[in-house]
């Protein structure tokens, strides 16, 4: 908007909003002025009188009249002459004029009067009702147009005020914003840009922005051409990440949003937003690199564990096989001490084999496994079969509710149940018959299984530790085992996207609770349906 544009010139006289409309009454005769004045009195109007055309002209310059009543026959300057002069004044060129003339006057009077812009004629002697009605119409008209003008003025002022307000706010915002806002031609010539735009691209505040072509702010100029083609097709581009180049040559990551704007008459523009996302991009890249590195080192570690334990098995088999062969065949030729030594050798080799086997099992959890529909009833059936000897030996009772079909890995689910039930039996108390309860509840997003026993229980301070590899709470002579079983459980459950927790106190049994998501949640673990 042009700030030099001013509201229109005020009228001759500031007609206050509440001011009554004014009527100018021109007649050289006092009695007539008085008489007509009385006729007009009931109207909502102020009557101003003039005794000559000259005085009337002066008043017309000072006031704005709703209507002028002009006596035609006046000395010096008659009504027609006065009307002609009134019409010449800009402020009164449109003011309605009613001529008052004698009944005897001829039609030529009327013709002359109309040609001078008279709106009406009234013949003397004046009929009060007719005069009042006619003048009333003009007052009404005047008031209405004044009201309309007033409203128009107010609207214009309000619009100006709002526009100014908006502009101020917008300017303030644009200046404070960290987002670059710009407008350019389709060819790339900058038209305007906010301070943030200059900051992002390192353009001096004094530099002429219109000398810059946006294409030169791209690391690859062709990227802009491709972007413009897309803009032509789609009309707008949102949050496009692209490498840009500052004027000092530094390369930054930017997020671009552009809109193609067509304005009739002024051609087509590109309105754009640009945000410097270099820091964000770098942080993202660092995070990705870090997690890739972590995944790689984890994979390497597991590969190492797998290979190491696999290769350990070979010589270990030799030690175990030959020590057991010697024990089988040459016990007779050894003395008592020799037999004890050999016993330690055989026993040590066996334990080492169990350890290596379990490390292998641990490092293999989640390798080459595809999640599928698994009926846990079948899983538990197989596990109980595997544990049959142990269950009979300790006279245990294993109770379980009807178990559901879940999305999982059948081998891993078997390991989970076998380890948990095996542990429950292993850590039984001496004075009570072992009882293991397996239950399941369906949550909103997961199956919650629980395996509880009436065994020796676990002190709360160990609840986290027992899930780590090689964590044992008892000596091998108290309870056999490698300390990997629960670590395998946790890894297998986490492979399913679930969690395992423990509720237990010493002497009060233990309850292991683990959750298996209803739907496969692990990315990269495809779900296959099997019979």
């Amino acid at each position, binding site marked *: 908007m042009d700030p030099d544009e001013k509201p229109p010139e005020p009228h001759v006289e500031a007609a206050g909003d509440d001011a009554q409309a004014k009527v100018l009454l021109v007649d050289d005769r006092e009695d007539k002025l008085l008489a007509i004045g009385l006729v007009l009195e009931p109207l909502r109007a102020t009557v101003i009188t003039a005794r000559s055309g000259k005085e009337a002209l002066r008043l017309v310059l000072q006031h704005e009249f709703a209507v002028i009543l002009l006596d035609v026959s006046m000395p010096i300057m008659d009504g027609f002459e006065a009307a002609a002069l009134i019409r010449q004044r800009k402020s009164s060129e449109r003011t309605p004029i009613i001529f008052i003339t004698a009944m005897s006057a001829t039609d030529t009077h009327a013709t002359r009067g109309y040609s001078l812009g008279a709106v009406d004629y009234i013949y003397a002697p004046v009929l009060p009702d007719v005069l009042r009605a006619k003048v009333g119409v003009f007052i009404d008209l005047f008031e209405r147009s004044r009201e309309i003008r007033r409203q128009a003025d107010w609207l214009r002022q309000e619009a100006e005020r709002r526009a100014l307000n908006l502009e101020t706010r917008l300017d303030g915002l644009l200046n404070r914003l960290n987002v670059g806002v710009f407008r350019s031609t389709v060819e790339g010539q900058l038209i305007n840009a906010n301070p943030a735009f200059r900051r992002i691209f390192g353009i001096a505040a004094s530099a002429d922005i219109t000398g810059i072509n946006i294409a030169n702010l791209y690391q690859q100029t062709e990227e802009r051409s491709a972007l413009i083609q897309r803009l032509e097709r789609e009309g707008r581009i949102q949050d496009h990440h692209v490498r840009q180049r500052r004027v000092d040559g530094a390369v930054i990551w930017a997020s671009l949003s552009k809109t193609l704007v067509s304005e009739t008459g002024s051609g087509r523009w590109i309105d754009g937003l640009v945000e410097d996302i270099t820091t964000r991009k770098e942080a993202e890249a660092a995070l990705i690199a870090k997690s890739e590195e972590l995944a790689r080192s984890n994979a390497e570690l597991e590969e190492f564990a797998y290979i190491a334990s696999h290769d350990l098995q*070979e010589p270990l*088999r030799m030690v175990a*096989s*030959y020590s057991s*062969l010697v024990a089988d065949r040459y016990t007779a030729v050894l003395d008592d001490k020799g037999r004890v030594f050999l016993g330690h050798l055989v026993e040590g080799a066996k334990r080492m084999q169990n350890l290596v086997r379990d490390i292998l099992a641990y490092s293999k959890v989640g390798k080459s496994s595809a999640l599928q529909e698994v009926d846990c009833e079948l899983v538990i059936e197989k596990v109980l079969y595997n544990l049959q000897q142990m269950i009979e030996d300790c006279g245990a009772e294993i109770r379980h509710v009807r178990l559901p079909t879940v999305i999982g890995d059948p081998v891993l689910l078997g390991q989970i149940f076998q380890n948990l039930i095996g542990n429950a039996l292993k850590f039984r108390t001496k004075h009570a018959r072992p009882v293991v309860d397996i239950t399941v509840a369906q949550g909103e997003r997961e199956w919650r299984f629980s395996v509880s026993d009436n065994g020796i229980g676990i002190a709360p301070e160990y609840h986290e530790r027992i899930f780590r590899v090689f964590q044992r709470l008892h000596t091998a002579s108290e309870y056999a085992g490698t300390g990997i079983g629960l670590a395998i459980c946790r890894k297998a459950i986490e492979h399913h996207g679930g969690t395992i927790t423990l509720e237990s106190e010493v002497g009060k049994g233990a309850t292991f609770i683990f959750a298996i998501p209803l739907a496969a949640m692990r990315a990269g673990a495809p779900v296959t349906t099997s019979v």
Partner: protein
Amino acid sequence: MSALKSGFILLVEDNAGDRMLFGEALEFVRCDIALHVAASAEEALRVIREPDPSKGLPRLIVLDLHMPGKDGKAMLSELARLPQATGIPVMMLTSSNRPRDQEECLALGAFGFRVKPNDWVGYQELIAYLQPFWQGAQRVGGA
């Protein structure tokens, strides 16, 4: 049972300790069959390609999977191309229990797949398990 005197078990195994344990177990179970050990696949293939006329061909081949040089799978492929090897069952004996290894070996024509025993008792059990194979092979060969 003089027919049992002809033919032998061919054990292909690079580990001397395993070779000896296998022999000890075979002897312990008192099986009346000869054992020929080959320390590599190359050596074993020679035994089949150029058989000693006095000994003939093996009735059973027990083959290690992981060996330096030609490994068990490569040997299986070669055996499949050898007419002399037709009808001789091959039992894989390995420290690997990877399902993929098993599947590959069976696809390449192995008759079976056993994980190496962990101790002396395990070796005795292995021999007991293998016995029907060479006896069955003898019947097939004798028919």
